[in-house]
């Protein structure tokens, strides 16, 4: 039997609830009361939903192209976080917007440069000049 994505999601939820209940059993009653009151019904509901999904595995499929697009957006988000970690927000913002527009949106040089300038200008004006927001330096820019 092949598990559908929906069944896997329900199963994951049931597993998380089971862990929560198991962990809460080790705590004193005051700390355990609420997690147990919420965790036990969650476990039961997720288990029932898993059974329903297993019995009725018909799910509208996602096309390969759609899946690629979804994964691409997540990859870009992960890349942005990595970039922030490495070089900090003030550098990551223009680099990210420009690369996204060029590589993902295929926007052309003019449009990409204009939108990057607008995004960076907004970011700089609002957060750096106006709010004086203390953005942390990145791991690379920290030593410099």
């Amino acid at each position, binding site marked *: 039997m092949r598990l559908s*994505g*929906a069944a896997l*999601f*329900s199963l994951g*939820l049931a597993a*998380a*609830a089971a862990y*929560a209940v198991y*962990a*809460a059993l080790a*705590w*004193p009653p*005051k*700390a355990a*009361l*609420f*997690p147990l*009151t*919420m*965790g036990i*019904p*969650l476990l039961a*509901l*997720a288990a*029932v*939903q898993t059974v*329903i999904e297993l019995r009725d595995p018909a*799910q509208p499929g*996602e096309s390969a192209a*759609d899946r690629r*697009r*979804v994964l*691409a*957006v*997540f990859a*870009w*988000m*992960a890349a*942005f*976080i990595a970039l*922030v*970690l490495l070089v900090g927000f003030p550098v990551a*913002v223009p680099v*990210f*917007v420009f690369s*996204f*527009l060029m590589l*993902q*949106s*295929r*926007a052309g040089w003019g*449009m990409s440069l204009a*939108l990057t300038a607008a*995004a960076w200008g907004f*970011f700089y004006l609002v*957060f750096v000049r106006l709010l004086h*927001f*203390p*953005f*942390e330096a990145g791991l690379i820019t920290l030593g410099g």
Partner: protein
Amino acid sequence: MLDALIQGLLLVLQWNAFSLMLVGMALGFVVGLLPGIGGAATLALMLPFVFKMTPVEAFAFLLGMHSVAATTGDITSILFGVPGEGLSAATVVDGHPMAKQGEAARALGAALMSSLVGALIGAAALAVSIPIVRPLVLTFGSPELFMITLMGIACITSLSGLGTRAQIKGFAMGFLGLLLATIGQERQSGILRFDFGLIYLWEGLDLIPVLVGIFAIPEIIDLAVRGTSIAGNAPAKLGAGVWQGVKDTFRHFWLVVRCSAVGVFVGILPGAGGGVAQWMAYAHAVQSAKDAKDRSRFGAGDVRGVLGPGAANNSKEGGDLIPTIAFGVPGSGAMAILLGAFLIMGLHPGPDMLTKHLAVTYSMVWTLVIANVITVVVCLATLKYLALVTRVRGSLILPLLLLLVFVGSYTANKQIADLLVTLAAGALGYLMVRYGWPRAPLVLGFVLGKLAETYLFISMARYGYGWLAQPLVIVLIVLTLLVVAYPYFQERRTRAA
């Protein structure tokens, strides 16, 4: 009471609050026009920016934005047949056929004017209900407030029109939200719960990264997957007759008033939300047709099919705020996010909002009124240009939206780990949308989790299990069970018919 009403108006008219309301409205304008990015997602996106504001400024900003998004959403519904807001779907049914017949301007005029009338009625209902609700709320103690939390989740799950099968998912998500709120140090015993050895989790998960991730990221992904221009490739012709539409509102004034009342009523019911309000108002408009021939005009471009949903769309905002402010039980996803704003501002919905912070509550009423009046005037004056916004290519605004998501999440606490939480919440939100799990109950549970735990703790400490036998608690338990059973009765009735 009158003092507080006037004080509320003066608070909104203060320079800071008023200018922030205008900024919020400008954002709401654009968002309402962009299909795919709902008002709830925008509220979540803007939540991090309210930290430095006073409560009045924050609510002027957020409510201004939210009420405008509801109004301008009608514009794309009518012009392109693509609802700019999930809430404005019912306007499509008659509004878009009118646009196709070259009566777009008339439909828009009708939608905007009826929205204004609806908003004013909604705001009046909110103002009038405060003295009525106040004595009721003040009699509630911790046991009742805990039950109200559970009833809120039951309502948002059962009355959302998703049917009996979706109830399991809805309740599971509500419990998951309540469970997620327990992460971190427990306040009474100091025990660390679900911290996985990470110091970051000692304080618990922050509201903002979770809300932004769950609501905004799935919408952004949807925009990326569709890969087209925002309004698709639908043609947009405005035609003439804006004033005709405005006059239509007054020609069918009682219909507009009745549909506004429907909107207020549905708004007050926690869990029903704006979509339901619009469809119920539409159904009422159809029902009020004189005969079968008159009824057959609906769906083919009847202006009454635009007036009804238009009025309910905005009147429900006032109604929706009543349970949110008075009981802390929001009626929709957007209101659940607004509840997050209450907590950020250090305000607790419930008795305090009706006594100590009454002027803040009335400032919300005034924000609804002023924001809607300005919106309608500006919309009527700039209709032609507004339609152009929807022609922007979706892929061009994606990086800007992503930027807003992550910068917003970071600025709340200045922690890089918040970015990872946003990404994880985004992935969870995406999977929930993909597999048909509702997001509103999860958000509601998460927002109310800490309060609910305190209520349960106090109830148990004070009464033991005896709190379950208190008369008001029993009434609330019965009401909750009725709410849970409601979709079953509804399905049986439909089957019997």
